[in-house]
């Protein structure tokens, strides 16, 4: 039990340590196409469809976020 708590804290610490404030004008790299969660929507649909029909697993992805943050 203490080992898993320690592991969780390590992950939390790593996450917090890695967290820095990124200003709205510092999102150049985050706007790169390959930095998006889905860089090609239709490819994602095809992959999803292909693998869901050959394998038993499905789901799990779909978050928004990242990107240029432009309005």
């Amino acid at each position, binding site marked *: 039990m203490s080992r898993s708590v320690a592991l969780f804290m390590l992950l939390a610490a790593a996450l917090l340590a890695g967290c820095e404030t990124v200003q709205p004008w510092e999102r150049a*790299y985050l706007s790169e196409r390959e930095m*998006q969660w889905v860089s090609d929507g239709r490819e994602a649909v095809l992959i999803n469809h292909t693998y869901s029909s050959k*394998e038993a697993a*499905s*789901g799990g992805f*779909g978050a*928004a*976020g990242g*990107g240029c943050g432009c309005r």
Partner: protein
Amino acid sequence: MGRQSAAETGRGPASPTLTALSSSALLLPAYAPDAAADAPPEFTEIGIRYSNYQEDALGAESVIIGARERYDIDVTQAYVIAPVGDSWSLGLDVQHDAMSGASPWFVGLTAEGQPGVAMSGASISDNRLEVSANTRYYFDRGSLGGGVLHSREDDYDARAVNVDGAFNSEDGLRTYSASVSASNDKVFPVQGVIPVRIDEERRQSRSVYVGVSQILTQTSLVRVGLSYTLQDGYLTDPYKFFDQRPDERNEWALGLGQRLYLPDWRGTLRADYRFYSDDWGVDAHTLRLEYSQSTLWGDITPYVRYYSQRQADFFSVIADSRQEFFADDYRLSSFGAVTLGMRWEMDVRNWRVSLFGERYQSDGDLGLGGGEEAPAIVDFWRFTLGMTYRFD
């Protein structure tokens, strides 16, 4: 049983979509909305993609009777997405699958006493058409989307609807997303050389997803997401001789993802992991790693995907029909698979050209769990060529 003409065999057995009765393939909306954006697209974009998917033929030692070659599918995808007014976008997607090939009917023992597949007869062809429409509304700190989908083929009809939302934190570094989707499907198998026991049955799927994405640094972000899906209705595969599945399935999936940009290299590392588990006893791990390199001649991205699944409780290589539930469908077996692929994408003025190629290889020994290898697991090649054009 030699090859027979289409006229003799009549219409054939399962399409890949239909054989996805063991999954919720049609549940996910056809159009993956670009929910990462915070503003409507600046341009109207139209695109078309052509893909060829080819499964390896079975070895002679694995086939009891029937054809050895498996699916050959030509997929055409066309779409358009346009901004509407200040805050909306509208998208339309059409996908057509032209399928031909034989599929597994049941697993028995070959003359050598090894598990082997009885395949359906000659090559059959089936066409599937899927049309979906979606819209998205963008407001100050997020967006809302909704879509509908209709897929139709000779033996399957699916209608689905989905809504989703994304909401940013005040500093814009965290994004919360959620989506809900529902699909109502009908299966009406075609009577052919494979006798089918049902006329028409229904099944439905309800799914919910929640996720969080966090920007960590100027060059990295992570996400975590959880999805839950409930399928109920007729979940058995009517084209399989030995197949009887529960009429309910609860599925969970946990996804983790990361993106890392390397400014000095002009490259991006992409990693996604998913753990899947359902109440049929299936556990699966999926890990996808990509490295995208920006070059003078476009972006080139090699990728690898590792997949491992552990069999459903009621699966066995040779189905045991004395049990309440049983299946010999390889899709519910224990196996592992590796995909090696590469994509190349290039922007030239208002055009974008992309090329994809990948090889999928599966094997019982590649899986993390135990279990005997089902003789019908697939290997395939897939190639895709795509073009998009954007304009005002």
